[in-house]
């Protein structure tokens, strides 16, 4: 059904922000859609507040890493990482970034998180934004929809009601920020 889908996405942030969690949610959404998926993660020392980056490849790939100049999109939880990880994008690739500045694909997730009184929600806010965002032609940026990721969250957090509620709220807040931006 979806054999033609191929998407390479870089997810970047600093240790403790939940880069791994975002990567996993997207990867599981891919599996639910019957798509082959590959991810690569940062573990160990760098997880203590250092720069962290995940690679997500949806479609028929063999290698877990994305070559610079090949990524379709960059989801960036820390604006300062753009200099390091922007060059993963191919010309015309999109960026969604947590930033106080204005610009296409920019969302001030730190501020919205404070508003939600949930400091740790930044990762899901940015993810919600990316899921709801579309390119100039109105085509969604990502291979899956907010509803797909909601389903993954519902399954993963089935046992933990309050965490699920908080996560869904963050995802929704990010998504509505994207609608306003468009």
């Amino acid at each position, binding site marked *: 059904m979806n054999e033609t889908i191929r998407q390479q996405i870089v997810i970047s942030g600093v240790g403790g922000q939940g880069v791994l969690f975002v990567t996993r949610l997207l990867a599981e959404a891919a*599996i639910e859609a019957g798509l082959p998926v590959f991810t690569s993660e940062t573990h160990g020392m760098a997880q203590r507040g250092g720069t962290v980056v995940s690679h997500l490849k949806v479609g028929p790939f063999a290698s877990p890493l994305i070559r610079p100049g090949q990524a379709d999109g960059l989801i960036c939880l820390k604006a300062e990482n753009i*200099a390091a990880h922007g060059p993963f994008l191919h010309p015309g690739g999109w960026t969604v970034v947590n930033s106080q500045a204005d610009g296409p694909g920019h969302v001030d997730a730190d501020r919205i998180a404070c508003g939600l009184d949930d400091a740790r929600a930044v990762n899901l806010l940015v993810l919600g934004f990316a899921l709801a965002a579309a390119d100039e032609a109105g085509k969604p940026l990502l291979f899956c929809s907010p509803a797909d990721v909601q389903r993954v969250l519902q399954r993963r957090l089935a046992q933990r009601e309050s965490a699920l509620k908080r996560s869904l709220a963050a995802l929704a807040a990010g998504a509505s920020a994207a609608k306003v931006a468009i």
Partner: protein
Amino acid sequence: MTRKLMMGNEAMALGLVENGVSLATGYPGTPASEILASVAKSRRLRTDPIHVQWAVNEKVAFEIAYAGSQAGLRTAVSMKQVGLNVASDPLMSAAYMGTAGGFVVISADDPGPHSSQTEQDSRLMAVMAKIPVLDPDSPAAARRMTAMAYQLSEAFRIPVMLRPTTRVCHSRQDVAVDAEVLPGREADFKRDPLRWAATPKFRLKLHGELEEKLARIAAWPETAPVRHNPAAGGRRALVASGVAAAHAREALASLGLEEELPFYQVLQPFPLHTDFIDHLIADYDEILVLEETVGVIEMQIADRHRTRGKWTGAVPRVGELLPEAVFARIAAFAGRDVDVPQLPAVPGRRPTLCPGCPHRASFFAIRKAAPKGIYTSDIGCYTLGMNLGAVDTVLCMGAAISQAAGFYQAYRHAAKPPPVIATIGDSTFFHAGVPALIDAVVQQVRFVLVILDNRTTAMTGNQPTPASGVGACGEPLNAVAIEPLVKGCGVGFCRTADPYDVKNLIKLVKEALAYARQTGPAVVIARHPCVLEEARRTGRPPGPPPVVTDACDGCGFCVERFECPALVMNAEKTRVDIDPILCVGCNVCIQVCPKGAIEEAKDR
């Protein structure tokens, strides 16, 4: 068919469980840590019991698993590459004696290195031990190779190494999960002292047997190299193994060389199949070899004038072989002129201890108590004490103590010997610190050892330590307490304190220094649980952040000397603010600020 997202480490664990492992051991170390925990999780797929345990170090882990194999069971031991150094003694000997049940040694390498002291190649250890090694390119392959490893091990009665790299261990892939599950066997040790307790004379015979085994393994069809494109022709060939082979597959596709450049993937880098070597030399003029991190395959292709690889300098010898490097090497080899974008060298954020980490308080106190000291340290989160200027050396597991002894001896006859303070984590102390401490007691080494006891193995994901009293499956076990162990080593000064009370810890370290100057080793146990582990365990939300008052004049002392990530200097450098997202309310900074400008939060 159900497909599940699986980390390479989980996939290997699943492979072990599906293939009848009965005894699995290990010592945590990035990137291998999740293997054993995942065996513990997936052991429920079996109806018969599996013994899963963390051992005190890799040597002990290896020996336990090896004995299980001698008793006829399928067993496995997992560790990171530098852990294999610790287990190399039994490894070399086990290769001679051979096995009864299948025995798999998983040694995870870390080209980069991302989280290790060295980029060493475990496959060279396999060469030295003379055992076969398998090199997976993905989580799915790593799982298949566990089955292959057990067959190989039992067909030739030899330990088999499975060597994943970080990009196999820590990548995730969709993996089909409903395979057949083999039950384990009953233990059945067959006495054979000539083999299992061989004297040097018989070792010679065993060595001869080992060589014969290797020759036959180099002809074993099951692990022979795979030719991906039989139709491709020409006098040039590409040979790759591990993750480099995965990168190569994609590079060939994007260069349109899939059906042009003959491409072989090596599954068993040592011993390289003899026929394969002959074929390469007979049929090709130039052979590009891509592998991590040393040219182990390349070394075995006898004609050096035809190979292009690590030894010839065609492929970089240092660092991870990233897909862009693989792409560029293949393009150049095939005579294609292409532009290969690279990442700019941007210095990322340096890692730091977590906000509220008890180690930060300990290092601060140590520097206060002995500002001119030599600080030897060890492997763990606390290596990051470097940021606080309280770590001068880090060598390998347990070396903090022996190096402290070395520095003491080096300065012994100096006019004013500097104080020497060693720091070591609880898990590392058990792992390799105890013998060094015994030695220091015997030699009356005048130094202070601060054991940073955070009740866990934090760096690798909070595995239990021998003091925890719980096992790899969460089962209750005996606990070994640190204080009696230290005293049992013969240390006369052993006191415990909570580092969150910084003043008290400074006082105690000073007392320890005074004792050490007069007498010999003094030990201070700085005990406070890891904040990450504590938050996970209790689910308790963090306390409220303290408040910075107008007394703060932006002197920067707390930012530079205490470097809690939650303390942020404002842009004008006139005052420090506390980031409420990062702060966990440990209140230690209150004791650090020389102006008294940080105060406890009033009740919210």
